[in-house]
């Protein structure tokens, strides 16, 4: 998990990915509103982000908003580590990617939740879930952190531990 902070460029990249992820997650909580606002004028982006941040906070509380922030940071770390792995060992050797991407997708769905469910027609479904869907978000985050723990530092090769019977 320390690799994304081992240079200024990686740190900036990680923070940028985290910020973009946060914006996408919050804006996707009410996709039709976001599309109408941004479709009218991109200058409404900050209005939409602030309004939906407030709405997210009031709907799922500080814990839910905090989970989204942590998920965004974890995504920044995961993507920076994944890019580093491709750079050091190439696409063929980047087996870790195959384990990270499904985790990102699965936990991302768990994090944004409301917007996706709304688009699918399950309006208000998250409100009926335990803790307004925060349990689902926490599960998604644990899933992502589990996948993150498998990546390791892309500059180092992992050597499988020999079994004790050998």
């Amino acid at each position: 998990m320390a690799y994304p902070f081992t240079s200024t460029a990686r740190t900036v990249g990680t923070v940028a990915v985290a910020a973009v992820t946060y914006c996408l997650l919050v804006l996707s909580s009410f996709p039709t509103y976001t599309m109408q606002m941004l479709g009218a004028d991109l200058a409404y982006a900050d209005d939409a982000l602030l309004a939906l941040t407030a709405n997210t906070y009031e709907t799922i509380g500080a814990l839910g908003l905090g989970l989204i922030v942590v998920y965004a940071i974890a995504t920044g770390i995961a993507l920076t580590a994944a890019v580093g792995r491709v750079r050091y060992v190439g696409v063929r050797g980047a087996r870790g990617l195959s384990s990270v991407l499904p985790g990102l997708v699965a936990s991302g769905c768990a994090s944004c939740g409301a917007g996706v469910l709304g688009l699918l027609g399950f309006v208000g479904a998250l409100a009926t879930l335990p803790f307004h869907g925060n349990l689902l978000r926490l599960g998604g985050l644990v899933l992502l952190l589990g996948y993150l723990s498998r990546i390791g530092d892309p500059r180092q090769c992992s050597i499988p531990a020999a079994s004790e019977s050998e």
Partner: protein
Amino acid sequence: MDLPDSPTTRRALLGGIGTILAGGGVVYGASRLDSASSPPPDVPLYSSSETTGFGIDLQGHPVMGESNASVDVYYWSDYQCPFCRRFEENTLPDLIENHIETGSIRFVFIEYPYLGEASMTAAVMDRCVWRTVREEAPARYWEWHSAVFDAQSSANSEWASRSNLLDITRDVDGIDADAVDACMRERRDDIEASIETDVQQARQYGIQGSPAFIIYNRQTNAAGQMVGAQPYERFDEAISKVRNA
């Protein structure tokens, strides 16, 4: 306190502090967005038995604005929805001042309870309050409506219980809370069925969340849909567009 020696640790620490500050700022900003509730409008509320050209049955819904306004705005909301509260606080006062009081639009309140059982309780009480005041003191409805949005708290918590909503009703001058209570006991099933019909109709229009609006030109039948607590300027543009369509 010793500062960490490793550049990696320092960057991680700075990144963490920056994130916490940014996150804290966002949460603080989000928590400071509330503003005072809307002042009472200088335009009467009234009931109507008309079914509009768009297919909205106005029976049972409070209507605000000139009955012969060229444009209708249908407004679906849920008393438990924070985004509806944001619209009521930030945008509706300007709409009232610049479009409803000037006779430019007619505004129709329609319940869209979808955030749990308490949403339906509040929606039914809304209908009961309107039934109680619509003939003699329709302006009281606005005071009750604003008072409930002012009291909004976490969805499906105690604030939207029947007893708490009745307490709010008792605090609004000119509303017979006992009559509202009786209406809740005796007519709840009928009113729920009527609200369910409204919700199904809204879904047929593609409405998936609240607040939601349909802006309808009564002369040309042109219509447009808006969702969410969009700023007043967006409504102003949309109303002009539909009026000129």
